[in-house]
């Protein structure tokens, strides 16, 4: 029987794997890009997202805020300039909701590719374009070779790729440097404020998975998009478990 590997050797092998995956430790001067949520930044390595990397967002259910939070973070990243590319194969991206999250529509390029193969080509093109701050879209299944191409493209472009994965999707390697799982916190927040629980499964500051809570804050606009004839009233019901 072979002798077990020494801790030093194990650590060395881990580092080599992380290097291949693009997860090498950042230098002390390499600060991350803030997500706009201090609580989330705190638990991320480099206190933010790494420029030129893929970020995987997964909801713990179909409508639990992964895309919503990713758009809010994209809006924050694009606040000082840059374009956002949205891959909207399902024709479901809603510009009104996105604008409400701060997404600058006049710098947003929505692409409706039509078929999966073309969609992958669009992903790669957008990730590779230096002026694009965030490329965002749903990605159900992705071959690891394609994912690797995405990683190389985003490294060349220097932006971020937000891959929105559906819940229950297989978990093949996406080469994402950061991986989040997002779920809504039931009954939290005032009015429409929405508290989300974010599990950082990869790219966290420490050795283990980290958890953060972020809150999307609803601020009433002085000019409502539509005339609200009846003022919304919050109703709370007892949870049925």
């Amino acid at each position: 029987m072979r002798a077990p590997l020494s801790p030093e050797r194990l650590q060395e092998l881990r580092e080599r794997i992380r290097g291949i995956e693009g997860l090498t430790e950042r230098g002390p001067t390499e600060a991350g890009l803030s997500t706009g949520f201090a609580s989330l930044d705190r638990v991320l390595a480099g206190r933010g997202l790494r420029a030129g990397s893929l970020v995987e967002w997964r909801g713990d259910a179909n409508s639990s805020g992964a895309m919503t939070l990713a758009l809010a973070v994209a809006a924050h990243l694009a606040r000082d300039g840059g374009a956002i590319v949205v891959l909207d194969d399902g024709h479901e991206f809603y510009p009104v909701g996105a604008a409400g999250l701060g997404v600058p529509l006049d710098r947003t390029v929505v692409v409706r590719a039509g078929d999966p193969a073309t969609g992958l080509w669009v992903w790669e093109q957008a990730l590779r374009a230096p002026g694009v701050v965030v490329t965002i879209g749903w990605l159900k299944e992705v071959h690891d070779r394609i994912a690797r191409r995405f990683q190389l493209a985003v490294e060349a472009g220097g932006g971020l790729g937000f891959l929105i994965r559906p819940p229950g999707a297989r978990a093949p390697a996406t080469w994402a440097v950061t991986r989040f799982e997002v779920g809504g916190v039931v009954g939290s927040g005032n009015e429409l404020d929405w508290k989300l629980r974010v599990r950082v499964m990869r790219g966290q500051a420490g050795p283990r998975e980290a958890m953060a809570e972020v809150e999307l804050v609803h601020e009433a606009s002085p000019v409502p998009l539509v005339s609200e004839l009846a003022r919304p009233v919050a109703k709370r019901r007892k949870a049925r478990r």
Partner: protein
Amino acid sequence: MLLADAESLWPKAGAVRFEPADPLADRQRLREMVVVCQQFSPTVAIDVAESPEAVLLDATGCGFGFDGEARFAGDVIAAVRERGFWGVAAVADTVGAAWAVARHAANARDRVLVVPPGEHRRALRPLPIESLRLSASTVEVLHELNVARVEQLLAIPRDQLPSRFGVEVLTCIDRALGVITEGLRAERAVEPLEARWSFEWPVDNAHVLLPVIDELLGRLLKEVRGQDVGFQKLLWWLRVEGHDQVCLPIELLRPTAVKADLLELIRLQMERLRLPGEVTDVTVRAARIVPLVYRQVDLFGGRIGATGDEDVTGLIERLSSRLGNAVVLRPRLVPDAQPELAYQYDPWLAVATRKPSDDREPMRLTRPAILKERPEPIVVMSAPGGSPAWLKWDDREYAIERSWGPERIETGWWRAADVRRDYFTVETTDGERFWLFRDLAAGQWFVQGSFA
């Protein structure tokens, strides 16, 4: 008139269309008018203003062939009208006077105004001071002093004008009166160019076409070399034996005279091209040739940065070339109460020359980020007329923890199919959020969006 005032006078659904200002498209139209007017005069120019409004013709000696200047100008107007536009033509001793009379004469639509020789000073006197093409700030100062018409300005001693209003006022007056000669910088309107290649034997391999197109592009670019122009729209088509010809357009946000850039866009289109048969001819046409100075258009209002702007522009061109304009889109908000009609998509290539609008809204969670193309019917349990307590959608059941609403959205008489809906944002006991509505006419519940 403010846009809001105009929209209240002419409702959106009516015959009047509201479009964002598009100075570059205006300039392009003027260039087309230049081509039209070149049949009347050898020297045709575009107004040198930042947002030009006029085509200027040197009419010296031209009236002779048209039986007088009035007939000459009338024929120009008729040619413009034939192309679906209306215009005003003014003939005067100076460019400034002609511009002023054409721009500011009352009820002048489709009219010809001829200022007799030596009468331009008199023609200018009753016109507003704006007719002298003064800057907006100078006009504002003059209006504050109740100087509204040219004759009032001319009444001020000439030596006082520079010190009180700047040198610009004197220059503008002198230009209009002909003291300073104003030359016309003739516009070189380039006609569409075309190059063609006929194969000795028909070919069925798309890869053979690329070197041929490379050669044809080289010929076209050689034609415009040294003219500071580039191609903004290319058409290339293939004649295929036994089939209709295949025609593909290439549009660019910014003109280019770099062959490699154009060839790359064509190559991207070729990747998706399925030849229906053997190709006998290839034709490439430069359908829109514009000055390279148009490259200075700032696509994103300077908010991406010089190099980033170029990169994103290139990305949009590549995506549009390969996938078509209709799938590379810029969203914009529309003031419509009905959620599915509250936004529109425009092809980036069609809107890129327009000044971008800032559609940014403060953070609001009243609208989801995901909207169903068609609302999907669901089963909901609720008190009569009250908030939903339970819903079943797509064979899944959800207990509702909280809900916000109703937010009533109604559209009325101005639309054929009006809607009456009560919207609710609901939060399930699993922490998911959906956007539902009850159709008040049918009493049916639908899910329209999700906070995915």
